């Protein structure tokens, strides 16, 4: 694989992560528990979709051949998507969505901070914008952890159930395969292992305040997203996302 192809593959990974979670968050639009939260979820989604657009546009620029961001978002099927599995899980109840979001936000703050030191200027520029947004996201989702965990017995129970279900999907965020190892050593990519402990500390601190706990994480965790081995959920997500482009290929708005 040429250097350019490797860079495209890495950038598309990041775009896929952002697009899939952006799409999941958008499912709360008009379904939020109250208006301010509906707005918050929709606006957070917009931040992620904006990032996906930046990443895909960069990948399109690197690919040449007249490709655009839309080609990446709308014309690829499940097996070609390389996002981590945690992003594609259905939104579940409110607690589930926010535990997932909290895990992601705590990760993103550290991830984009690290990306600001990338040897690739374009990625640094994207990181400079993303980090500011992720800090707001983390503040918001941490607050929900506390409110739900330290709330009623029902909210506490739902929060703990959500945590128990989601824990096995966390490990994949910190996985480093051979491909990523190579991208890390040339300075382009972020090494998530370097901040895994900090992520853990953040989660532990907030969970303690929320009076919930993270179950023991064993050796095994859910994986496969990076290779295109996805859950069934991604198929449903893409069929909604890509419906127009598949029903009317080449359509122009």
């Amino acid at each position, binding site marked *: 694989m040429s250097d350019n192809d490797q860079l495209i593959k890495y950038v598309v990974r990041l775009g896929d992560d952002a697009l899939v979670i952006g799409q999941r968050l958008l499912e709360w639009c008009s379904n939020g528990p109250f208006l301010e939260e509906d707005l*918050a979820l929709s606006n957070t989604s917009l931040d992620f979709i*904006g990032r996906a657009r930046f990443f895909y546009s960069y990948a399109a620029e690197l690919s040449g051949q007249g490709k655009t961001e839309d080609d990446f978002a709308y014309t690829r099927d499940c097996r070609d998507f390389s996002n981590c599995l945690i992003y594609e899980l259905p939104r579940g109840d409110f607690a589930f969505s926010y535990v997932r979001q909290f895990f992601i936000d705590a990760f993103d703050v550290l991830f984009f901070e690290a990306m600001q030191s990338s040897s690739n200027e374009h990625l*640094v520029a994207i990181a*400079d914008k993303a980090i500011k*947004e992720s800090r707001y996201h983390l*503040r918001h989702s941490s607050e929900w952890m506390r409110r739900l965990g330290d709330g009623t017995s029902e909210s506490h129970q739902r929060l703990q159930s959500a945590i128990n279900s989601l824990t096995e999907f966390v490990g994949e965020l910190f996985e480093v395969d051979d491909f990523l190892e190579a991208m890390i050593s040339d300075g382009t990519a972020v090494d998530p292992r370097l901040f895994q402990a*900090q992520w853990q500390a953040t989660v532990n601190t907030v969970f303690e305040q929320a009076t919930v706990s993270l179950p023991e994480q064993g050796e095994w965790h859910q994986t496969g997203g990076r290779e295109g081995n996805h859950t069934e959920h991604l198929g449903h997500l893409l069929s909604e996302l890509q419906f127009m482009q598949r029903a009317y290929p080449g359509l122009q708005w």
Partner: protein
Amino acid sequence: MASKDVTSKDMTPIAVEPVIVEPAAAKETEGVIKLLDHDEWLRRQSYSDSLLSPIFQLLENVKDPEIPALSIWDMGILRRVESRGDQLTVVITPTYSGCPAMDLILEQIDTELRQAGYQNIKVDVQLSPAWTTSWMSEDARQRMQQSGIAPPQESVSKAQPLCPVCESKETELISEYGSTACKALYRCTSCLEPFDYFKAF
């Protein structure tokens, strides 16, 4: 990568600081004249460049779709104008990643310039340096306040905006996210009106 290695050699986690979730605390800046960052200083200097002045004037007609009182110049979205032969290049930068107004702004710039007779127009979107509210001029902030939106308060950990309606300081946060992702929703406890606050970032 200049990241801190926070795991010990055998990969057991060592005690680390959790991520700080509050924005940076305020520094004492009363009475201090703030320096503009270099890129912003250059931008403001270029406004008075006699050759590009008519173009900047024209582009003052392109307003922020969400805040019609302010132009893309006022908002710091319009970064640079270059004229090479008959090729006109306009450089803009997005405010936050997902700002949906950017596509509309792009179109409006094109329309405005074409209506004035320019034909060879290129609009570039520049990501770096990252847009920041500190690029908004004092005048722009005042006009924003007058149009009903509290302007961003730079370098404070907890914003205390003045009510745009009655100017009271007794305001409280309702939600971090307001009508758009760049704004938060506040309420005045004095006149009881809700209002948007443009978040500083």
